[in-house]
């Protein structure tokens, strides 16, 4: 029974991080109709920044300091996003989609090497924070307490986002712009500002995913593209542009991956692709997506 509980917790852990990444991707697409191929590397960048600050710069400090510094990765990616949108994305809104894809792919390559430039080719970790949380014992199993923080952050993010989008004025503006950009603009909404804000929020979410997971597993080159591919599966299942879809998709992928790792280690990625392929065949828009 404890073993089952551990599997469930691991699935939720994975789902939390995936929700943050895929949710950011979906939010950006929902509002701006663009897909940032570098989104996975934004997540990676957030992980690296947090690992560096918490694991290297503040290595000698104490737990409270580390906790305060933990979200720094998300702040860094938010700033990055705010800078990228007006400079590298806005010129492409009116052009054919290929150009936008090419540009964000170039950005993907740039970010990959920027991380190597800043932090070298070896993994960067913040394990002291992770270990400082200790572990819980139930029955015969031990489970790291830190993972509960990750799951908690994921759940809190989901609730916060829901409230933000459905209960605040900014959320209304966001939804209006996503549904009908021209109309919103005609009603006086500053679409450019909404776009920057949405993109920044999406990058913040991705960076947060990286920040909270990095104490539990190191930041390593290549994690960005892996994350991109996985969040792609999440949005295929959940529907591109839908936050509920990102949540449900993340949970599904989290559980399937955990099951896959336990029983079919070699082909765990293939099982996920099979599910994605099935969803694409049966319901191309995803469970919650708009076609």
């Amino acid at each position, binding site marked *: 029974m404890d073993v089952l509980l551990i599997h469930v917790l691991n699935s939720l852990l994975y789902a939390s991080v995936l929700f943050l990444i895929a949710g950011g991707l979906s939010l950006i697409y929902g509002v701006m109709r663009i*897909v940032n*191929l570098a989104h996975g590397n934004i997540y990676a960048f957030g992980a690296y920044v947090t690992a560096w600050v918490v694991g290297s710069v503040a290595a000698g400090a104490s737990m409270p300091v580390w906790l305060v510094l933990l979200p720094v990765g998300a702040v860094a990616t938010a700033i990055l996003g705010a800078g990228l949108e007006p400079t*590298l994305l806005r*010129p*492409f809104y009116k052009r054919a*989609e*290929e*150009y936008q*894809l*090419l*540009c964000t*792919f*170039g*950005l*993907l*390559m*740039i*970010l*990959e*090497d*920027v991380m*190597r*430039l800043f932090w070298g080719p070896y993994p960067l970790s913040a394990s002291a924070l992770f270990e400082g949380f200790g572990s819980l014992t139930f029955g015969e199993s031990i489970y790291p307490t830190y993972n509960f923080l990750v799951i908690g952050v994921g759940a809190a993010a989901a609730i916060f986002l829901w409230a933000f989008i459905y209960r605040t004025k900014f959320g209304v503006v966001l939804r209006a712009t996503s549904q009908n950009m021209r109309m919103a603009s005609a009603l006086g909404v500053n679409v450019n500002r909404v776009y920057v804000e949405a993109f920044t929020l999406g990058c913040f979410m991705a960076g947060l995913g990286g920040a909270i997971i990095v104490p539990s597993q190191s930041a390593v080159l290549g994690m960005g*593209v*892996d994350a*991109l*591919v996985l969040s*792609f*599966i999440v949005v*295929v299942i959940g529907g*591109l542009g839908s936050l509920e879809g990102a949540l449900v998709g993340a949970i599904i992928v989290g559980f399937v991956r955990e099951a896959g790792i336990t029983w079919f280690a*070699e082909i765990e*990625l*293939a099982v996920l*692709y099979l599910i994605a*392929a099935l969803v*694409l065949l049966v319901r*191309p828009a995803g469970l919650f997506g708009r076609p």
Partner: protein
Amino acid sequence: MSVPPSRPRPASSTARALRVAVPVVVLLALVPLILPAYGAILLAYGLVMAIAALGFNLLLGYTGLLSFGHSAYFGVGAYAVALMVKYLKVGSMELFLVGAIVAAVLITALFGVVCVRYTTIFFGILTLALSQVLWSLAFKFFWVTGGTDGLRVPTPSLFAGLVTGSGDKIVFMSHAYYYYVLIVFCLCVALMWVIVNSPFGMALQAIRDNETRAEFVGVRIWRYRWVAFLVSGVFTGLAGALWVPLNGLTTPDIMHWTFSGEIVFMTVLGGFRSFAGPIIGAVVFNYLKTYAVGYTVYWQLLLGAVLVGLVLSLPTGIVGTAGRLAARLQGRH
């Protein structure tokens, strides 16, 4: 209104193309006699990449589909050759090419069925994802593929065993093998020219320009995209097969997305809205890479920055920009 001549059509464009191509081929044929061995081998690499980019651009420039996973097909071609050496003890280049084509057809047919139902964003990520799956399989099944160590491929015999690489390897690569690559390159270019100028090629361009109208003119979108995907992958797989003997070794790296990025880059560099763009882009890129890699480890950063710059300001690439400059010099604009 006078009756215009019925057809001064691009049969003349093929004639025009030949007038450019023939001197170029002659020049290329003279290379081993003019340049040192290293120069010929480098150019051989460039011609191989040109075949890969040519295949890639059938999808991008002519069908409007941007694939981020073409490294997969290059890798399939390369590994097909390596596995033929390992398990079948084959040493004939012709058999290598056949094996690579068969393998590429199988993989692209399968991947194509999944990918061509979608366009732009989903197509792009799907191709990227599928190539990453292949890459990770090349690692996981290391007892077959040699894992990170890869598989070695010895010098093959050419022209059904008539020419063997029993002598000096450098001489073989810079002469016999170079000419072999050149011949295959010319055949590929000729075949691709016919394909894009055929009724089928027109249909692809129609699909690129206006999917709905293409359907309402009677073109079966899905089917034609799939065939284009197949042809594109096979050309790239063929390039992979030609590459392996040059390199002597194949590793999972060539199936990684970074290599797909290079194929995309070289095509955009040359100009993806033209026939010759990918060829020129590939050859130029090959030289750039050889010299730049010596200068910096941050090769991806450079590529990415230049790609973004190209897309922002010079989207038509070398060929397109050169064309505009030439037109301006002739005072047409």
